[in-house]
C-alpha cells in the first residue's frame, strides 16, 4: 500500500513541469557564469592571481624573484597599504609581497595565525603580531628572534614602550609598526559652554558629564556622559586596565607571578566603573560596544566623553562620517585622586615566522615598512601613530595630526597588558570577570575577583615549572 502510494506521488507531476525548472536553472547558471567571467576580465583586477605580477614592467632581476607571503588583516585604509607595498616592490624588484588576509578581530586573527604556526606552516614568511602575543609566540618558538637584524642602535629610535612590547626574555621578536594607546576624546564645544577644562580625574569627569547632561537634557535627550568599549572581548581588558591602573591597581603582581585582582584599589576601580560609568554615564548599552559602536555614538554627537585609540581622530573629523567635525579635542585619560593616568598599550608588530625560508628578505621588507618615511606615510594617510620618536617633531606628521604633540607623553607611558605566554587564557578569565560584574549589577565584585584570581594563579603556577 505504502509503496504504491509513493509511486503515485512521484508520478503526479507531469514530466514537463518536472524538467522545465532544470532547463531554466541551467540557463540561469550559464548566464551567471557568463556575467561573472566577463566581469572579471573587464575590471582586470587579476581574478586568477597572476595577471598583476606578470604584466608590470619588471626590471631584469639580479637574483631570482622571491615571493614573500605576509599574513595581515584587511586594513581600514587599504590604499595606503597598497601604495606602500608598490613602492617597496619598485625599490626591491627581486622581492614580491603577497598578502594573505585574515579577519581583523584581534582574537579571530590570532586563532588563524596560531593554527598555522602550531602546524609549522612554512607557506608564509612574516606576519603582523598584536603586542599582547609576543611572549606566547616567543615561548612557542614561532617567531624568529630579530636580535641580529634589529640593532640596539636602531631600536633606540623607537618609543621604548613599543620596543619592550616586542621583547621576551631579553630577545626581540617584533618590530613595531605603530603605537596605540587609549586616550580621552571630548566635545570641546560642550566643555567650553559649561566652563569646564578637560577633566584630570575620573570623578571630575563624572561631575562634568552630569552637569552637561542636565543642562542639555532638553536640547539632546540622547546625550550620554561617556562612551567606551565594554563588550565581552579583548577591548574590555584594555578599558578596564586604564581604570584599574589609574587607581594604582594592576592585574598581576609586580613579579608577574600572581593575580592581583582582589587588591582594594583594583576592586574600588571596578566598582566605580560599574556604578558611575555603566549605570549612569554610559548606560548599559556600552556593554554591547566595541570600537565602532562606541565611536558611532560619539560622532553622532551623543556623547560628551569618548575613550578610543588614535585612529578615531581622523574619523571624528571626517564630514562623511561625523556630525561633530571641529568640535572634538583629545587629551590624556583621567586618573583617580591618588593614581596616575594610565593608557593601555596597543599596536602591532612585524614578526618573522620561524618556519620562513626567506628571513633575510622578510627583514628587508620589515625594515622598509618601519622606516621613517613609511611611518610618516601611514601617519599622514591613515592616522596611525608612528612608533618612531623623531616623527613626533615632524612638521608633516603634526600637520596631519596636530593632536600627537600633546599625546606623546601618553604613548611614552602606555601600560602593557600582562606579559605572559599564557596571555590568551588570562585575557579570557579577565573578560569573563569584568563582563560579569558589569552586566550583573547584583554580583559581589570581591567574590568574582577571588574566583578570577584563583583561576589565573592556577595557570601562572603551570608556567613556573617551565
Amino acid at each position: 500500500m505504502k509503496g504504491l502510494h509513493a509511486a503515485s506521488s512521484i508520478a503526479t507531476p507531469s514530466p514537463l513541469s518536472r524538467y522545465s525548472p532544470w532547463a531554466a536553472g541551467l540557463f540561469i547558471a550559464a548566464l551567471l557564469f557568463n556575467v561573472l567571467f566577463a566581469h572579471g576580465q573587464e575590471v582586470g583586477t587579476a581574478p586568477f592571481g597572476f595577471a598583476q605580477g606578470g604584466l608590470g614592467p619588471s626590471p631584469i632581476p639580479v637574483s631570482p624573484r622571491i615571493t614573500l607571503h605576509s599574513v595581515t588583516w584587511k586594513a581600514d585604509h587599504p590604499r595606503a597599504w597598497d601604495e606602500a607595498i608598490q613602492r617597496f616592490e619598485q625599490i626591491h624588484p627581486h622581492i614580491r609581497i603577497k598578502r594573505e588576509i585574515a579577519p581583523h578581530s584581534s582574537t579571530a586573527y590570532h586563532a588563524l595565525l596560531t593554527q598555522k604556526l602550531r602546524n609549522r606552516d612554512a607557506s608564509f614568511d612574516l606576519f603582523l603580531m598584536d603586542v599582547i602575543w609576543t611572549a606566547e609566540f616567543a615561548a612557542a618558538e614561532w617567531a624568529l628572534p630579530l636580535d641580529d637584524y634589529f640593532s640596539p642602535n636602531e631600536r633606540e629610535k623607537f618609543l621604548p614602550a613599543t620596543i619592550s612590547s616586542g621583547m621576551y626574555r631579553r630577545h626581540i621578536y617584533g618590530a613595531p609598526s605603530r603605537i596605540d594607546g587609549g586616550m580621552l576624546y571630548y566635545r570641546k564645544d560642550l566643555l567650553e559652554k559649561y566652563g569646564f577644562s578637560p577633566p584630570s580625574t575620573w570623578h571630575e569627569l563624572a561631575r562634568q558629564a552630569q552637569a552637561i547632561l542636565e543642562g542639555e537634557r532638553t536640547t539632546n535627550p540622547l546625550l550620554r556622559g561617556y562612551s567606551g568599549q565594554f563588550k565581552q572581548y579583548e577591548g574590555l581588558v584594555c578599558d578596564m586596565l586604564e581604570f584599574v591602573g589609574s587607581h594604582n591597581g594592576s592585574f598581576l603582581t609586580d613579579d608577574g607571578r600572581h593575580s592581583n585582582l582582589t587588591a582594594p584599589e583594583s576592586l574600588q576601580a571596578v566598582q566605580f566603573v560599574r556604578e558611575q560609568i555603566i549605570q549612569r554615564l554610559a548606560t548599559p548599552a556600552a556593554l554591547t560596544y566595541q570600537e565602532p559602536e562606541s565611536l558611532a555614538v560619539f560622532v553622532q554627537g551623543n556623547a560628551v566623553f569618548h575613550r578610543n585609540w588614535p585612529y578615531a581622530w581622523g574619523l571624528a573629523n571626517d564630514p562623511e562620517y561625523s556630525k561633530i567635525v571641529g568640535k572634538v579635542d583629545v587629551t590624556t585619560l583621567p586618573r583617580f585622586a591618588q593614581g596616575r593616568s594610565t593608557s593601555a598599550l596597543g599596536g602591532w608588530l612585524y614578526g618573522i615566522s620561524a618556519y620562513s625560508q626567506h628571513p633575510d628578505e622578510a627583514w628587508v621588507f620589515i625594515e622598509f615598512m618601519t622606516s621613517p618615511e613609511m611611518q610618516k606615510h601611514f601617519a599622514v594617510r591613515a592616522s596611525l601613530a608612528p612608533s618612531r620618536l623623531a616623527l613626533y617633531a615632524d612638521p608633516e606628521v603634526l600637520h596631519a595630526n596636530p593632536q600627537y604633540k600633546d599625546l606623546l607623553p601618553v604613548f611614552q607611558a602606555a601600560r602593557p597588558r600582562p606579559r605572559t605566554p599564557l596571555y590568551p587564557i588570562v585575557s579570557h578569565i579577565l573578560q569573563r570577570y569584568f563582563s560579569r560584574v558589569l552586566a550583573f549589577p547584583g554580583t559581589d565584585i570581591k567574590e568574582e575577583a577571588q574566583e578570577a584570581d584563583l583561576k589565573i594563579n592556577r595557570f601562572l603556577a603551570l608556567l613556573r615549572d617551565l
Partner: protein
Amino acid sequence: MAFPALTFVAVFSLYPAMDSFLLSLYSDFPGPERSFVGFGHYAELLQDPVAHQAFIVTLGFVLLSTTLELLMGTGIALVVHERFKGRGWVRAAVLIPWAIPTVVASQMWRFLLNDQYGAINAILFGDRVDAYVPWLADPWMAFGAIILADVWKTSSFAGLLVLAGLQVIPEETYDAARVDGATAWQRFRHITLPLLKPALLTALLFRTIDAFRVFDLVFVMTQGGPGDATQVIQFYGYKTLFTEGRVGYGTTISVTVFVAMAILSLFYVRTVGSKLLQRESA
C-alpha cells in the same frame, strides 16, 4: 557501491575525529611536548564551572530554538500547503532566510538590534529615541536575541520537512472526518498531527544536531557576552582550542559535546532510523 562515500567520510570526518579524540588525552602544558594524561581533561571538564554554565546555556538554546522552530515551521508548512494564488512566491519568500549565509544573517541581526540605529527599536519606539533598548546588553535579552535570529534563519528548513510530510497525507483521510463533522482543529489534532510525527521527528533530529553546534551566531552577535550569558559550549570550545591553544582541553570539550549529542540522537535514530530500514524487509 558505497565505497567512495565511505572513503570520503573516513578520511575527512572519521579519521579527524579519532585524531582529535587522541589529542584530548594529552596534556596542554607545559611546553610543546605533550604528555599522556588519559581522561584527565575529562575529569577537569566535570569540575569546570564555566563549562557547566556553557552546557546549560546550550541546552536552553537547543530546547527553546528547536521547539520554536518546529512550531513556526509547522505553521509555515500548513500555510504554504494550502492552494492559493501566488503560492510559489510565498514559498520562495519563506525560504529566503534559510538561503542567507549565517555569518551575514547574524551581522544583520546585530544591526537590527543595535541600541542606536537599529530598526527594531525604530519600529517599537519610533522617534522616542530615549526609550530605545540595548537588546544585547541584557544577559537574558541577549540570549533571547540569538534564539530569535536562529528561529528566523532556520524555521523554513523545518517548514520544508514538515510540508513534505503534509503532502503525503492522502486527502481521503480527511473526507471521512469531515463527514463525521469534525472541526478543523479536531482534524488537525487527530489526523494531521499523528501522521506528521515522522516528519516532525526528522526535522527535530536535524535541527537538534545543528542547534547543538551553534557557533557562528554567537561568534558574530555577542562573543559569548555579556558576562558569558550567551556562551554556548561550541564557542567555549573554540575559544579554548583556537584562541588559547589548549588543544587537549579544547578537543575534550568538543568530543564531550559530540557524545552528549550522540546519546540524545540515539533516541531519534531508534525511532526514525530503524523504522526507515525495517520497512524495506516488509
